[in-house]
């Protein structure tokens, strides 16, 4: 599974993306965040303002409760500030 980080999440994790295989019990986007937070202090910092973090599963906006089973790509980012 490809995990993508944008904006200040990318700066905290120190990477734009990583390829990971989460444990089988990590079935939702919210559970994936819990799992990622344990990977490094940078990951923990990235997800600190957790309520403001937006999620996309396979390039579609998603909620923390949405399933990531079978997803190829999960992205985490701040609220968008385009144009």
């Amino acid at each position, binding site marked *: 599974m490809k995990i993508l980080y*944008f*904006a*200040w999440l990318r700066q905290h994790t120190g990477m734009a993306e990583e390829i990971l295989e989460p444990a089988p019990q990590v079935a939702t986007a919210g559970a994936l965040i819990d799992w990622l937070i344990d990977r490094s202090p940078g990951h923990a910092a990235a997800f600190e303002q957790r309520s403001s973090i937006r999620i996309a599963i396979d390039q579609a906006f998603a909620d923390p409760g949405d399933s990531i089973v079978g997803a190829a790509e999960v*992205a985490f980012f*701040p*609220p*968008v*500030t*385009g*144009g």
Partner: protein
Amino acid sequence: MTVRVQAESFDLGAETDRLTAGRRDVGAVASFVGIARETNPDEGAEPVIAMTLEHYPGMTERMLAAAEADARTRWPLLDCLIVHRYGRFLPGDPIVLVVTLSSHRQAAFDACAFLMDYLKTQAPFWKHEETASGARWVAARATDDAAAARWTKKD
């Protein structure tokens, strides 16, 4: 009907000429160009030296295409163009272009405003501003969300 996400600049005149060339059915061409500003939206904040727009390649194009399809179901558009740039911009640099063509002006205006509200609030872009005292990620603006909400209340 075209969506482009690119680093290069764009030419408003050339794009609208291309869209209207040879047509006899277009009565209204509404367009919008968004430009990087030196003035910070927050009152009293420092001047912006430069701004970098980061985006989510793939998802951005997909969302802009969906927004365009949505606009076409809401208004009778004859054609439509969205160009959004990414990268680093200085004040005065053009960032985003939306052009809508219709028989009548109201449809062209409304679709253009709708697409701009969508770009500001839904498309996966993030703005990073440099000022004399440092750089920061720009926070989402409540007024932008309110502007976008106009289009959902309607239905």
